């Protein structure tokens, strides 16, 4: 099946307003950072990546990976006249507020990031984790050899992240890198970032700007660092059923959890292994689900 990665195609050459700035930033961001995760999920399907819509026949099916689709309705309308079925992987839309009804109605199936309960009952929509960015390290540091007890790298926007830092400040050694903006100028480069995560027993995972999911959850899972997840409204029980992740509603629970576990190495290793096994199985289930829906 053909696949077109459309997030970074047909972007404006010159930025004249904030909307265009967003299209360019997120279009390139997803192309650079989301492709390893998405292509991993699609790895069970025989895919031919194409750069344009030329040479498509109307009995073909196509997978499109895209973002900000509300601004691309005419593209999808034209595409629906060119091919038999469109399968869409819709990235972004953290707040769930993007205009998407028309584009979704033109697709055979949509996999979207940023799960919201109202998509659960829609037959042609499945929600997938937002995944990790770029390529994660292949080797994992053993829990007993890790340099840091915990890490947090990211912006400090509201009370959750403020409280996170406050409640864990005395748990040393730890690593923090605080940035003003998402992927802003103080952010570590990918290899440094993953090096810290790989070397941390725990990664603290607060709520995102609008949505409970953040990339650092999946990045910590890939690195073998135990994520401690802020779980408002029991979101992660709903989205990732039967997961063994430590979950908290207030960061004091997290610091207590770490203090209780940090010297119980055997228990920590057990928990880490349990989480790793669950994550491997969960990814395989997601891949199978892609295969099932594509009927390959």
């Amino acid at each position, binding site marked *: 099946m053909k696949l077109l990665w459309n997030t970074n195609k047909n972007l404006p050459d010159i930025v004249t307003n904030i909307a265009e700035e967003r299209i360019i930033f997120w279009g390139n961001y997803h192309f650079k950072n989301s492709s390893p995760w998405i292509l991993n999920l699609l790895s069970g399907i025989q895919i031919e990546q194409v750069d344009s819509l030329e040479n498509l026949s109307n009995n073909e099916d196509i997978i499109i990976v895209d973002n900000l689709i509300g601004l691309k309705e005419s593209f999808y309308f034209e595409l629906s006249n060119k091919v038999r079925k469109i399968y869409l992987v819709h990235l972004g839309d953290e707040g769930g507020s993007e205009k998407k009804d028309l584009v979704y109605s033109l697709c055979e199936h949509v996999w979207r990031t940023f799960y919201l309960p109202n998509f659960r009952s829609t037959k042609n929509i499945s929600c997938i984790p937002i995944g990790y960015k770029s390529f994660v390290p292949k080797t994992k540091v053993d829990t007993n050899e890790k340099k840091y007890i915990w890490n947090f790298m990211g912006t*400090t926007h509201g*009370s959750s992240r403020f*409280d996170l830092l406050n409640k864990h400040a005395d748990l040393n050694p730890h690593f923090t890198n605080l940035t003003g903006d998402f992927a802003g100028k103080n952010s570590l480069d990918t290899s440094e970032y993953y090096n810290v995560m790989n070397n941390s027993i725990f990664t603290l995972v607060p709520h995102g700007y609008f949505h409970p999911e953040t990339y650092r959850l999946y990045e910590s899972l890939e690195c073998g660092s135990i994520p401690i997840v802020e779980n*408002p409204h029991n979101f992660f029980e709903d989205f990732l059923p039967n997961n063994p992740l430590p979950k908290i509603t207030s960061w004091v629970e997290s610091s207590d959890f770490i203090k209780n576990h940090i010297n119980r190495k055997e228990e920590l290793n057990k928990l880490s292994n349990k989480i790793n096994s669950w994550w491997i199985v969960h990814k395989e289930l997601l891949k199978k689900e892609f295969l099932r829906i594509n009927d390959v």
Partner: protein
Amino acid sequence: MFNNTEFNNAYNLIKNNELNEANNILIKFRSSFFLHPDYLFLMSLFLVKSKRIYLAIDTALLSLKVDNTDSVLKKHGYENSSEELIEERYLFLISMFEKIKNSELVDILEKTMKNKNPTSFLLYLEKIMPGICLKNKL
């Protein structure tokens, strides 16, 4: 406590744990009142009842901030919160910071409530929680 009767209804529904009905009122008023300090306070009460404690704190802090930012009130044609609501908002925030065991912020807010002047607290807030801001709302 509220000038808007529907807000009073929503407040009573939240207090009585009738959250679905309260949410319907909040949804109805969202587009016109999303930055209204009283609406934000109601949202924070609703969020804490639905186990979203940090979002509740952020929303109550934003309510306090808007209530003390004349340019935003003027732009949207909103009135300030009543004295009764201002006091309840302080008490709510204090109880939230007690809940997350942050005694420093409890002390600061108790002093702020006593002085009835949140200026220095709001300046401190800009440093410690830079995301609670109104940069696109002015």
